[in-house]
Each structure stands twice: as structure tokens, then as C-alpha cells.
């Protein structure tokens, strides 16, 4: 694929001082079993290219699935016309000299095309689906595996040549149990880079029976108590907490106002970097595209900026935003290599990639033992946060009431709410490396035109104090 795009790229002509071709080929295969019935397999091959032109002052793009020379040349011409049309009315005075000419390659680990066969995968999915059966209160059982391979190239007329490949095999399952007017769900997700060889150690084998058992336990459980208390978030819910109340507020394009019409603005302002205490001194947050198994690992972002680990929050102090090359120029701030596009038909914007909370020193047992009254929560089920990314309310599938340092019982419909700017300062214990887990999501939405992209979040378990916690039924 890379050579095909390179050949086409070399045949194109443009008089602009800078132009580039970003080509993407993605294959996906979704295999699923629902209620012991194999769902029709869905296979997709998506291939296209985005041509980008930068002139003195202007920028334009055109994306097409017509990969003939004629089609790509027409797209390049259209991108050039957009650059000319916007050169005197852009929010930033673009300069061809600011565009890099990166050269490099990355091949991610794993392969989704190796064994097991499709039949063997269906056997695995069917087995876990079947294992969730058995109690008449179990009303829905679903297991799935999404296989994905992505190959990307980025060529510039200034000599840039970047080639990257990655793969992921993401198993997923959910089980719902019902009794009267109550339905409870437990789910499993494992979104990481790597091939099918990762399924065996993902926790997927055996999850069917576990999820069914836990959904039934939730049906029988009391509602989560309400009150101000300690909150122990396990890594899969930490992923959501980081995503919504650190990741999005630190996106520099939000801070610059680009997203105010859609995804929202940020309570963080440009003058806070270097002096704002974002969280307690225990909070350390990094942008790290170098962890091989994490979902959004890469060597170069989609504008060709080399990717490396950087600290965004150190000892609670806000250091730098999530801003790619262009946003950094606009804001005069140092950022990260996070200009990313979800596909060939969407332009790069500031996105999260791998955004992680670094491990601390507390064991999970010590954290639980330190809680006089609180709730442990895992697996996100509900997320809502205001457009400044400040007032939030999140809910989980699973809760466990902790009293006097001991887990007492399962509680259902656990929710909590707070304000980002205060919440992270209530962080009082951070789990050690033994509690550290890598998670991620394939669907983070943002941008105009809209883009849903994959992001990774790794974190230890974390303990927060004095959080407003509550359960279901009437507010």
C-alpha cells in the first residue's frame, strides 16, 4: 500500500510551496455472537487519501477515495484552491516554512491475520456467550471481536516520508439481567494495540460467566448510598475520568476556541500553564505515545510531528497542553504530537492519544483500608460534563461499599458528581504499579466535521476524598 501511494504521490504536480499526501488503508472485521446466534460478519476495506496545500497565509485540504492519478491530482488542485481562497481570512497566517519534512517508520506489534481462524474465533465468542446463559433473569448476552489493521503514509513535497502500521484485536462482551423494572448490565472491553495473540491474556476467556454472575448480583444489590464520602476509582473508570476532565480540558484547540461551537470550550486558559495547581501533588499525567500496547501509540502524528512522551501535569502542577504543531504556533505554548485525524477523509486536529496517570506508591489494600466510608466503582456506564469540562456527573456499572476499611457489599447504580477544577485536588492516594492497567476507547468524538477517534488511557486505581456520591431511582 505504501509503495502504491508513493508512486501516485510522485506523479502529482503542484506549484504551492508546501503540499502533502496522507494515505490511509484500514481493514476491519467485526465478528459477534448474540443470544447464541452468530451475527453476520462485517468486513470493511476503507482506503483513501487527503491532499493538503499550504501557501503563504492559506491552508486547504481535499480528501478522496478516487486514488487514480486523475482523482488525486484533482484533489490536490482543489486543496490548492482552498488554500488560495483562505489565505487572507484564516485564523492563523499559515507558513510553508513551518511544515516539517519528517522521515521515519513504525510497525506496531501483533498481527490480526494470523491464526486462530474465523471459525475458532466464533467458537470462542459463542462459548463465552453460552457461559453467560443459565438464569432466566439474564435477558441479553453479546460477545464480539473487532479486528483492525491500519496502514498510513505521509509524504510531503519537501521530502517527508512517514510510514506507520498498527493493528488491534478488541474483544468485547456485555450481559444484561432483568427483574421487573430493574435491568443491570455488566460489560467487558479490552481496547489495545496488538494482534489476536493478546486475546488469551485480555481477560476475555471466562468473562461470560463472570459478567452474568455480576449482573445478577447487581439486581439483588441495594442502591449506592448517597452522601459525601471517599471514592475509589478502579483503572477502567479512571480512564473515563482522565479522558473527560483532564484530556478534553487540556486540548489546546478548545482553549483557542476552535471547538466552542461543538465539543465545547475549556475552563483551562492559556495563562494557567506553568502555574495552575490542577490536582493534588500526587497527580502526574503524561502524554505517552510510546507504550506499545496502548491504543493510540504512534511514532509521528498526522502532521508528521515526531511523537514522544511529555509531562502535562507534574506533582499536580499544570505544565503543558495537548496541542499539535499548529496550535502550538497559534498559542505560543509547547504541546505534544497530537494532531490526529480519524481517517483519510477528515483533517488533523488536536486530539488525545495515550493520556495516562502515572502510578503512585499505594497498594490497593492500603487504599481500601484507609477508607472510613466510601464506594469503590468500576466500569463506566454514564458520562456527562459541561462544555467547559468542569461540572461532571459519571456513573458506573459496579460499586462496592467500603466501611471502616473493609468492603462490605455490592451496590448498584453508583454515580458521583463534582467539578474538575476541585476534584483532582481531592486525590489523596494513588495506586502503585500493581494496580496500573492500560485501557482505551475507539470512539472519542470531536471536531467539525465530526471525528470519532481511538484514544488510550492507562492509570492505577486512585482514591479521592469528600466526593458527592449517589445511587439510582429518584434523584
Amino acid at each position, binding site marked *: 500500500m505504501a509503495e502504491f501511494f508513493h508512486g501516485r504521490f510522485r506523479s502529482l504536480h503542484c506549484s504551492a510551496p508546501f503540499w502533502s499526501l496522507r494515505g490511509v488503508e484500514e481493514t476491519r472485521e467485526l465478528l459477534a455472537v448474540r443470544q447464541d*446466534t452468530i451475527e*453476520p460478519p*462485517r*468486513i*470493511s476495506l*476503507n*482506503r483513501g487519501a487527503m491532499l493538503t496545500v499550504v501557501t503563504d497565509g492559506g*491552508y*486547504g*485540504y*481535499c*480528501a*478522496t*477515495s*478516487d486514488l*487514480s492519478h486523475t*482523482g488525486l491530482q484533482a*484533489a490536490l488542485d482543489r486543496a490548492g484552491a*482552498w488554500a488560495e*481562497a*483562505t489565505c487572507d*481570512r484564516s*485564523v492563523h497566517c499559515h507558513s510553508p516554512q513551518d511544515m516539517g519534512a519528517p522521515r521515519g517508520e513504525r510497525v506496531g506489534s501483533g498481527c490480526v491475520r494470523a491464526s486462530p481462524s*474465523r471459525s475458532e474465533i*466464533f467458537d470462542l465468542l459463542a462459548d463465552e456467550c453460552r457461559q453467560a446463559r443459565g438464569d432466566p433473569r439474564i*435477558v*441479553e448476552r453479546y460477545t464480539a471481536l473487532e479486528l483492525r489493521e491500519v496502514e498510513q503514509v505521509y509524504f510531503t513535497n519537501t521530502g517527508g516520508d512517514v510510514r506507520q502500521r498498527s493493528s488491534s484485536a478488541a474483544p468485547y462482551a456485555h450481559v444484561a439481567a*432483568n427483574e*421487573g*423494572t430493574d*435491568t443491570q*448490565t455488566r460489560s467487558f472491553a479490552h481496547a489495545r494495540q496488538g494482534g489476536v495473540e493478546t486475546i488469551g491474556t485480555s481477560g476475555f476467556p471466562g468473562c461470560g460467566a463472570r459478567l452474568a454472575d455480576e449482573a445478577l448480583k447487581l439486581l439483588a444489590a441495594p442502591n449506592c448510598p448517597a452522601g459525601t464520602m471517599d471514592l475509589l476509582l478502579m483503572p477502567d473508570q479512571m480512564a473515563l475520568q482522565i479522558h473527560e476532565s483532564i484530556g478534553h480540558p487540556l486540548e489546546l484547540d478548545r482553549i483557542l*476556541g476552535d471547538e466552542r*461551537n461543538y465539543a*465545547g*470550550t475549556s475552563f483551562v486558559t492559556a495563562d494557567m500553564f506553568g502555574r495552575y495547581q490542577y490536582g493534588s501533588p500526587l497527580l502526574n499525567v503524561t502524554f505517552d505515545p510510546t507504550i506499545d500496547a496502548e491504543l493510540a501509540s504512534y511514532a509521528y502524528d498526522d502532521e508528521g510531528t515526531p511523537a514522544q512522551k511529555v509531562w502535562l501535569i507534574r506533582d499536580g502542577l499544570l505544565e503543558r497542553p495537548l496541542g499539535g504543531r499548529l496550535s502550538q504556533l497559534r498559542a505560543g505554548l509547547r504541546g505534544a504530537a497530537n494532531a490526529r485525524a480519524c481517517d483519510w*477523509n477528515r*483533517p488533523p*486536529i488536536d486530539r488525545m492519544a495515550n493520556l495516562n496517570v502515572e502510578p503512585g506508591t499505594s497498594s490497593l489494600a492500603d487504599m481500601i483500608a484507609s477508607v472510613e466510608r466510601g464506594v469503590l466503582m468500576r466500569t463506566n*456506564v*454514564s*458520562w*456527562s*460534563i*459541561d*462544555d*467547559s469540562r468542569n*461540572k461532571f*456527573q459519571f*456513573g458506573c456499572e459496579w460499586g462496592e461499599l467500603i466501611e471502616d476499611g473493609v468492603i462490605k457489599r455490592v451496590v448498584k447504580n453508583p454515580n458521583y*458528581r463534582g*467539578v474538575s477544577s476541585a476534584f483532582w485536588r481531592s486525590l489523596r492516594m494513588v495506586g502503585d504499579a500493581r494496580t496500573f492497567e492500560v485501557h482505551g476507547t475507539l470512539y472519542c*468524538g470531536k471536531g*467539525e*466535521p465530526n*471525528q*470519532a477517534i481511538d484514544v488510550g488511557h492507562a492509570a492505577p486505581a486512585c482514591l479521592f476524598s469528600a466526593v458527592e456520591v449517589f445511587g*439510582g*431511582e429518584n*434523584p
Partner: protein
Amino acid sequence: MKEQFFEIASGLCEALRRDETLLCRLSGERSDFARFNHARVRQAGSVEQRLFSIRLIRARRQASASLALTGRADDLETAHAALAGLRETLAQLPEDPWLLIAEEPRSTSTGRRGRLPAPEEVVSAVTTSAHGLDLVGFYAAGTIYRGFANSFGQRNWHEVDSFNCDWSLYLHADKAVKQSYAGFAWDTSAFESLLQDGARRLELLGRPSRTLEPGEYRAYLAPRALEEVTGLLSWSGFSARARATRTSPLLRMEHGETLSRMVSLAENTRESIAPPFQQDGFAKPDKVDLIARGELADALVSPRSAREYGLAANAANGRETPEALDMAPGSLRAADALAALETGLYIGNLWYLNFSDRAAGRITGTTRFASFWVEGGRIAAPVNAMRFDDTIYRMLGDNLADLTADRELLLDGSTYEERSTASAHLPGALLRSLRFTL
């Protein structure tokens, strides 16, 4: 695009073996996109895409594949390769007990030609007209194509030229007026008129803002705010599969809970811009009643659910979500909404809704953009973002005082993967009480 799609479909159908059935689908667009910040261009470009999908059926087995077409002669060869791949896949599959396809050919050709200027002209109009304003927004325009063909000879085509310009005028921080201008024929003077109206409304946001204490307040939800509520309910609320698996957020309505008799919701395909056929080629009925005078009516039934649960299919999409939601009007004149509210919150937009307790129909979200505190029927002050947490049975049940007689047709501006053809036709809603928590 139409001729090319039907040629490929026919070419594949001719190559079918005797016991094979083929469904083909095209989802394409030629779009121009321009996003703005501070009344200048942030990013502008164009996208041309053709996503072609085929579903092969043999001996009650089925599998599907999709690929991006180039629009060139080699597409047929690529499609043949995908067909061959599906034949191999079918050999590994058992029979699908929930397979249901449309075998009676019902060909249609629908669409709407628009009048869209060169996108550079719109960019010039927006940046010039908004000079001096802090406008941030997005213009998307062009032609959307949807096609279906099958080996029974059915051919469907739907082609619409449309534009959707959606923007916010900011005063400061998060205080903004949200506006949109969507349709089929762009008129710069109409855009400018809206912009001037928005600029006037900005003055209201200049008043000192008020932070409300958590509690219960009377509230008026403008149609855009109500769209967020119905949008959340559409997340499995009207799905036959969700009803059958007891996972619907309207679960309690299956146990006798009701909404106000003022609430009637329908999937009204006849009055929308969505194609009149769904992805498997089933012709959509003009209208499906979802909630009738406060009580659950029909569900959206996809062909797959129809087979699984022994129901009559009504051509719902695979996710069984509305694409043309229509809410019956009430009796309140929109112009009288502030007076009827008297004292309380006027909510122009809601944001980021989700469930606090899905089974109980309890939802949460925040106010956004221009939301105001109203006293004596007059706007008193903008309010800072507030979080509500309440049940749908209170909001659209006991606490629903009235719906407006005037409704707004809201074209969905979503552009995830492709430009949406969904829409909603909604009134505003006056609530006696809405619970705010943060």
C-alpha cells in the same frame, strides 16, 4: 454516481450463482466543509467519498463487506474480489435464524435539487458579515447520495443537495448565542439577517450572569434543548430489540408508567429528508407512532428483530433509532413562552445528556449557550451552566405544563463518517419543575 452504482450492482448480480442473493448499498457524498473561529477560517476543505457495501446470502447464511470505491473502471473488479471473499466467508458460517430480506422489488427514485453557491462564496459571506463578531462555527454543504440494489431487481436512489451552517456568537467565556441556517438553497441575505438577530441577542448575555443554587425551578426547553432529551431517549428508547431485552430507558412504560397525554412522538419519514428506504432495501412506512398520548405505541422494528421476536418489520435501521422524529405540537404560542414561564429558567440548549439510572428513566445533562433566568415573564440574567438530574416521567409527565404550537424542523448536523440525513420536528416544552443538582 447513480449510474456507476447501478452498473456495479448489476455486474455483481450477473455473476451470482443460482442459489445466491445479493444486496448492494451505496453511501456517498461530495461535500465542502469550512470551520470558523473568531469569524475567520480555521480549516476548509472538500471530501468526496463512495462507500459501497454488499451482503451475500446463500442457504440462509449471510455476510457483508464494504469498500471505498474510486469512481473508476477498476471498481467492478474490486467489488468482484469482495464478493469472492464473502463466498469464502459464508462457507464457514451456520444458518442465520434471524435473516430477513425484502424479496418484493419496490424501486424508488427520490431526491431534491438545491441551489448551493461555490463554497468560497459562503466563506467570504460568513467572514465578511461576521466581521467584528466572535463567530465560531461550521458550514457543510454538497450532495448526499444513498443507493440500494438487489438481485431481485429492486433499485432505489436518493440524492439531496443541502447545506447546514451552524454557528455560535460568543460574548465572553461560555456565554454565547447558538444559531443555525440549514436548507437546500443558500441565501446570503437570509444568513445575514439571522446573524444580525443573533448579535442583538448577544446584548442580553452582557448582563451580569447568575449562578443558581441547586433545587427545583420552572423551566422552558426550547426545541433545540428538547432535541437533546428526545435524542437521548432515541438511544434504545424506541427499539423493539431493547424492549424485548428489557434494556430500554422507557422500561417502566412497559409496566404501566405513562407520560403526559400531550406527548405524542412518531417516526415521520414522509416529512423528512431521509431516504424512504432503509439499508436492507425495505420501504419505510410514511409514519410509525412511537408514543401516542403519553403511552407506548409501536416500536421501531428492524428486519432482524422482526425475525428474532416474531414481529412485523417496519423498516427500521439496524440500530432501531429514529431518523425523522416528530413530536406533536401543544397549544402554547412560542411567542408567549416567556410569559407562561413567568419565573424560571429559559433553556436554549442542553448538552451532553446521559442516564443517571437508565432503567428508571432518570437522565442528567447541563445547560449550554444562551440560557436565562426569567422573572415576571422577562429575561432577567444569563445563567451559568447548571446540571439537571431528573426523570423523564417527571419532565414529560406530571411536570409538563404545555408544548408550543409552533415547531422547528431541526436538520441533524452530524458529520461522523458522513453527513447525516436525519431530522427532528419538535416544539418547545414548558415544565412546571426541573431538578438541578450542581
